[in-house]
């Protein structure tokens, strides 16, 4: 097992499913046997303010927070939150912006966050079946099909 900790930040605005998406990543990493920590600040997030969540996984993780400027992956769900969060990304890190997804191709527009996870998944060593398990656990059954479609859209690339 790789001993390096993988640092991911998902950012956006309240109501965009940032915390749901982060929960799916953390759950998928947990299901792969990694040590995982996920941290978030969400006190006032329901009122449309900035929201972000840190996910860290690897052999052993101590702090739940990604050190400033050391994120390997930065997933931003809202275009106006890209510059606010760019300083979190390490040199050479991967930035995934809303441009990665064509929303008109989504069965359900609300699955945009999961489509971006599909893009993220191309970079992570987590099997597709595990992603599906984590998505299944995060949503009620009636939303499974739309989220699988969104994930597949992001994963195959557009």
């Amino acid at each position, binding site marked *: 097992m790789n001993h390096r900790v993988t640092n991911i930040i998902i950012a956006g*605005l*309240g109501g965009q499913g940032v915390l749901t998406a982060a*929960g799916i990543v*953390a*759950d998928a990493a*947990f*299901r792969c046997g990694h*040590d*995982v*920590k*996920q*941290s*978030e*600040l*969400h*006190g*006032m*997030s*329901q*009122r*449309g*303010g*900035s929201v972000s969540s840190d996910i860290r996984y690897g052999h052993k*993780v*101590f*702090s*739940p*927070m990604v*050190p*400033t400027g050391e994120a390997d992956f930065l997933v931003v769900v809202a275009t*106006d*939150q890209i*510059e*606010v*969060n760019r*300083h979190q990304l390490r040199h050479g890190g991967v930035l995934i912006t809303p441009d990665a997804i064509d929303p008109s191709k989504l069965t359900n527009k609300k699955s945009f966050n999961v489509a971006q996870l599909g893009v993220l998944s191309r970079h992570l060593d987590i099997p597709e079946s595990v992603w599906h398990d984590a998505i299944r*656990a995060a949503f009620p059954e009636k939303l499974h099909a739309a989220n699988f479609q969104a994930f597949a859209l992001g994963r195959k690339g557009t």
Partner: protein
Amino acid sequence: MTDSNRTLLSGDEAVALAALHAGVALGTGYPGTPSTEILEALAEFGGRAQWAPNEKVAVEVALGVAFTGARALVTMKHVGLNVAADPFFTASYTGCDGALVIVSADDPGLGSSQNEQDNRRYALAAGVPMLEPSDAQEAYDFTAAAIELSERWKIPFLLRMVTRVCHSRTIVASRALPQPTVAPHFEHDYKARVMIPAYARPAHRRLRAKLAEIAAWNESSPLNRVIAGDQSLGIITSSAAYLHAHEAAPTASFLKLGFTYPLPIEKIRAFAASVKRCVVIEEGDPYLVEAIRAAGIPVEGKPEMYRFGELNITRVRRILAGDTSPEPPPVPGKPPQLCQGCSHRYVFDLLKKLDCIVSGDIGCYTLGVLPPWEAMDTCVCMGASVGIGLGLRHVLPPEQARRVVSVIGDSTFVHSGITGLVEMVYNPPPTGHVVIILDNGTTAMTGHQEHPGTGRTLEHEQTGKISFEELGHSLGIQNVFVTDPALDPEAFERLVRDCLANNQLNLIIARRPCLLIAGKIKEYERAANQTCAALGGQP
């Protein structure tokens, strides 16, 4: 998400799971970020959990439970312990027969609070032993330990958490926990529980003797761990700060404290003597460093600039390097705002238009202070809108006093606003007063919890309901109005203008369900009506 007994849980959920596994008879508290999810999770897991009108009542209810030999859990955010401070300080004298665990969820960095007070000071001030978990696994283990130790020493325990413990999800291995050994029962023991001076004086001596015994026990407690490393640097730390410090200095030696009041001073002394350089890394106030230095142990603390805000790996690296150069300012994100269509918007539109002096309170509506309204002039603590508004009215010149309005949410009103109304009736200002309850039928800011004004329990089932208008009438307030500001903004404006001009006491209940939850409220009401119909009664 479950892999046998290993689960990914937030610190809040881990506290709830441990409470459930340990057979806690009742969980109670008042919603407050970052503590709210504990009781919600306890109910979801199948335990008994209920919201109290405020934290003081919650601690009192839990103390009653613990007087019977049963186990009780109370949850609140840090400022909630200010409200509950009265029973908290004397519960350490009375002690308890069962377990009483009080969770204080502190908010360093003010993610969603009005101050960043460090409640470790409360443990010291009240003589209540304190445990501090650093992640969800420890939140589970320390809740179990607090229950066990509270019963063993017959004293309440404070479980002090911080946002990064409450709201961080980490892997938790759960296990079978020891169950209560006695059924709830009552034995008379008035000398222990009736705190008249004659009985409280010996109770105070008993408390100090108990704390001395606990301090001696804590010297070898497994809740404080030495992690041996390089002897050139030793770090004494607790809570989430330990996790940041471990990554900032992975080769250092650590004394990771979990049981932080009363402190294991000799263990600390021995650790400090075993390393060349000893640094205390703690978030918030210099609680540990002051106590350690007062015991004559030379240790380094952090520069004052790191008292403010949360710690993280980067900041701990700076502390260890003695770096006091200015930190890069945080990149401003998008501030939260009142939702489009929120009925509070109509109220603040009007208060701004009328150039009111607005004494505000704690909730979503505090966002009325931000543009485009900037229509709030004070906001201090839960319920303060009424008292501060009255104070302003008492001494301002009449033409200014008549512009003063107190604005308070429904849950906040139940929590701490009712006594303000009593004051208003008892000591009315010469110009009268106007109190507006922004009644959106839920505790919206913390994520839509029920409260006594909704008439539904924590689990959204029908129960007794407090009527604000009937309460206002019964207190003797001359004018009590119920209105929906969004339905007819012009009528609302006429009403407020009349109230500001009439030199009388006015209570305006601006009632419209929070639009984020209006649909759910209808569902709850439908379910309640069906239950009533099935029983052949009226809703």
